[in-house]
């Protein structure tokens, strides 16, 4: 992001003004990714406290083993790990590229996170 001089690989020279724009865009998209992370953390905390998981001790004590249910930990944790991973991957891919490509890559990564998060949400609700 902060590379100001063109190098031997022919990367386009990026002046100070467009660097500021890139940083502002990265921060804006970072906030959107961060909100996806907040939603995922909220689910990680709230879903295991839902009624269908809250009474496991009671069910086990009374021999109702069929009602004992384990929260979908893998899906919940994967949903938390997804936004940061996608954000970092998008930054690596968008590194030293033209401004419109940076926007496109960050937007595509945000869309991928949104689609996968909805898939995980549907899965968590379905079990």
């Amino acid at each position, binding site marked *: 992001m902060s590379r100001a001089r063109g190098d031997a690989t022919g990367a386009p020279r990026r002046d100070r003004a467009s660097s500021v724009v890139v940083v502002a865009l990265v921060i804006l998209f970072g906030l959107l990714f961060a909100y996806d992370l907040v*939603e995922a953390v909220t689910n990680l905390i709230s879903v295991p406290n839902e009624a269908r998981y809250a009474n496991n001790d009671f069910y086990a004590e009374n021999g109702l083993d069929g009602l004992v249910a384990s929260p979908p930990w893998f899906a919940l944790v994967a949903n938390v790990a997804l936004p940061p991973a996608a954000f970092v991957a998008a930054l690596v891919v968008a590194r030293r590229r033209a401004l419109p*490509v940076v926007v*496109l*890559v960050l937007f595509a990564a945000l869309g*991928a996170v*949104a*689609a996968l998060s*909805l898939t995980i949400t*549907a899965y968590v609700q379905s079990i």
Partner: protein
Amino acid sequence: MTSSRPEPVDGDDEALSWGDELDASHVDGPARAGEPGPDDRPDDPAAVKPMSSAALIGHGILGGALLLCAVGWVTLMGRFTYTFDTPFATGLWRFGVVVAVAAPVLWFAATIAVVPAAASRRRLVALLIGVLIVAPWPLLVGVGA
């Protein structure tokens, strides 16, 4: 075409002759190959090489699959119209659903922009990964119905 022209001698002859550079309707064509033009650099051979038929067909198949993914997410939108405690949270959730609908198209555009056409194998792999990531899985697997 409003400039005056030499008096036409014969309509048929006029139609069949191209005139010369002094003709009022003369327009300069593109520079001839031998003449140095404004951008007379040697073309990058990799850039002008046409895409192979297989790569082109692969682009079409995977691009079409991504388009179908977008259509699938549109049909799923109704399943995710949740309302949260604050309008802020609800608005951002709705925005996320819209972004999920746009995700396949964005992935296609980003792949085309990032991976050069010459590396068609890498491009097709990236598109295939995209199909797997942004596929409307709740619709395909039938969960959350």
